């Protein structure tokens, strides 16, 4: 791989930036691979990278129907954190955060990971008690967490509404200092480049239309660029897992829903952490260009359209101004929607499937970005060994049958409410 370093920047700067090699190739599909990964998003590309890096499997294709980075890896609000409460989630997301901390070095690609911390505001004494519970669980699991009182929150985020007339008063906050943000496109590009350097074929504009079977076993995929044989097939197609799963014969507890995100015009530095509102769905961080990047709740009805509804734009703006009245005059530059695989407990599904040769990585709901490195790591293990990695043992498809759902919010089996 052509290494990126201060010297390569100097060398190419002095020669007019004309000699940078392509970051990855554009190969035509071969007739057969050891592993075919369907979906060239963050998770699919990370899986390919770790299959090569950790397991020495290099005869791999990542098949993407559009272009890499065009799906949810490029549509999220880039927040990375590991403040989970329940067994099954805590260690998985903490492992992911640890991989994030070294990711730029691992990939030789600056993913601009910035550990600016995450502040989740508490708006009642009971909510603060709940956050203390969460913080204690995290600390017992060796994860950093603090509970802040109102004065400490005020020092960190003086722009919240602390007035007598605040819609929801601020009692304190949950704080994780190692949380942060990353440049989401760079994550896709970094994994693509590093996987390509290991010989992985990244095949874009190639849609999987069906599966090739030999008896009961899946032995390849049919695509818009011909048939591709595969020793094992991994699905990592956020938002469209049901559609492809159905073609393979899988029945899944998944609904597709829209989640929107927004960015405002750029302003001077204001939001120094990532911030979440405890009284409604609103979370925000400030990009390096100065825009406030924020999001809210699901649109609330099944949808495969990558665009959102104005009702949610209004709801999110109301929540934003209730917490931060100073941004009420800011203009929104863009908003967009991504299609989420919503599961009945808002936790992912990652496991071998009942169909021989087919492995599933989906159901990430609205939390897939932060999981990208650990998802790739654990799914690569699953594809290489045929058995789930211990960190994802709780994410099996059978948990809905056995009653071992991981429902962080305690909402019950209603995907659109999660």
């Amino acid at each position: 791989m052509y290494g990126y370093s201060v010297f390569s920047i100097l060398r190419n700067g002095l020669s007019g930036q004309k000699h940078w090699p392509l970051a990855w190739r554009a190969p035509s599909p071969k007739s057969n691979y050891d592993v075919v990964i369907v979906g060239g998003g963050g998770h699919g590309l990370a899986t390919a990278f770790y299959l090569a890096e950790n397991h020495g499997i290099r005869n791999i294709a990542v098949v993407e129907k559009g272009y890499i980075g065009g799906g949810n890896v490029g549509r999220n609000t880039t927040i990375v954190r590991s403040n989970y409460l329940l067994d099954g989630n805590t260690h998985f997301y903490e492992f992911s955060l640890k991989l994030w901390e070294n990711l730029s070095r691992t990939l030789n690609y600056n993913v601009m990971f910035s550990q600016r911390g995450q502040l989740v505001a508490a708006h009642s004494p009971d909510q603060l008690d709940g956050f203390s519970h969460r913080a204690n669980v995290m600390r017992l699991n060796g994860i950093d967490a603090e509970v802040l009182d109102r004065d400490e929150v005020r020092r960190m985020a003086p722009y919240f509404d602390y007035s007598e007339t605040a819609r929801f008063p601020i009692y304190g906050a949950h704080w994780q200092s190692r949380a942060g943000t990353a440049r989401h496109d760079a994550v896709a590009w970094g994994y693509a480049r590093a996987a390509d350097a290991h010989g992985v074929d990244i095949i874009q504009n190639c849609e999987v239309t069906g599966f090739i079977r030999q008896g009961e076993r899946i032995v390849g995929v049919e695509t818009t660029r011909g048939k591709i044989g595969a020793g094992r097939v991994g699905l990592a197609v956020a938002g469209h897992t049901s559609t492809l799963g159905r073609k393979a014969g899988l029945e899944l507890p998944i609904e597709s829903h829209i989640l929107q995100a927004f960015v405002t015009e750029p302003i001077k530095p204001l939001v120094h952490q990532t911030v979440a509102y405890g009284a409604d769905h609103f979370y925000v961080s400030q990009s390096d260009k100065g825009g406030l990047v924020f999001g809210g709740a699901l649109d609330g009805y099944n949808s495969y359209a990558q665009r959102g509804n104005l009702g949610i734009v209004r709801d999110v703006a109301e929540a934003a101004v209730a917490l931060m009245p100073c941004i009420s005059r800011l203009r929104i530059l863009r908003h967009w929607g991504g299609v989420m695989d919503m599961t009945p407990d808002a936790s992912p599904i990652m496991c071998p499937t009942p169909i021989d040769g087919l492995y599933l990585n989906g159901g990430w709901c609205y939390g897939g970005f932060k999981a990208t490195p650990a998802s790739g790591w654990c799914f690569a293990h699953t594809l290489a060994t045929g058995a789930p990695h211990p960190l994802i043992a709780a994410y099996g498809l059978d948990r809905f049958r056995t009653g071992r759902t991981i429902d962080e919010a305690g909402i019950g089996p209603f995907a659109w409410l999660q």
Partner: protein
Amino acid sequence: MLQIKCPCCGPRDHDEFRYAGDASVGRPAHTDADFERWYRYVFVRENPAGAHREYWQHVMGCRQWLIVERNTVNHTILSVNFSRGTPA
């Protein structure tokens, strides 16, 4: 906003309604002891990209439960009917 033509109240914005999911899922009889059928009723969803039959309740209006047939790709509403009389 989606506009849902409520058979009682006429066309209304969808935020007057509460969404309640896939209406094509049939609930097993209370006497049914088959685990697999209950599992499928609670968890498994067809999740089509296209026409989808779904429950909406007009909570801010007549409070009637409706079955709306809607396209999940372009959000066109194909039909709206009362759900009463249809087995849940």
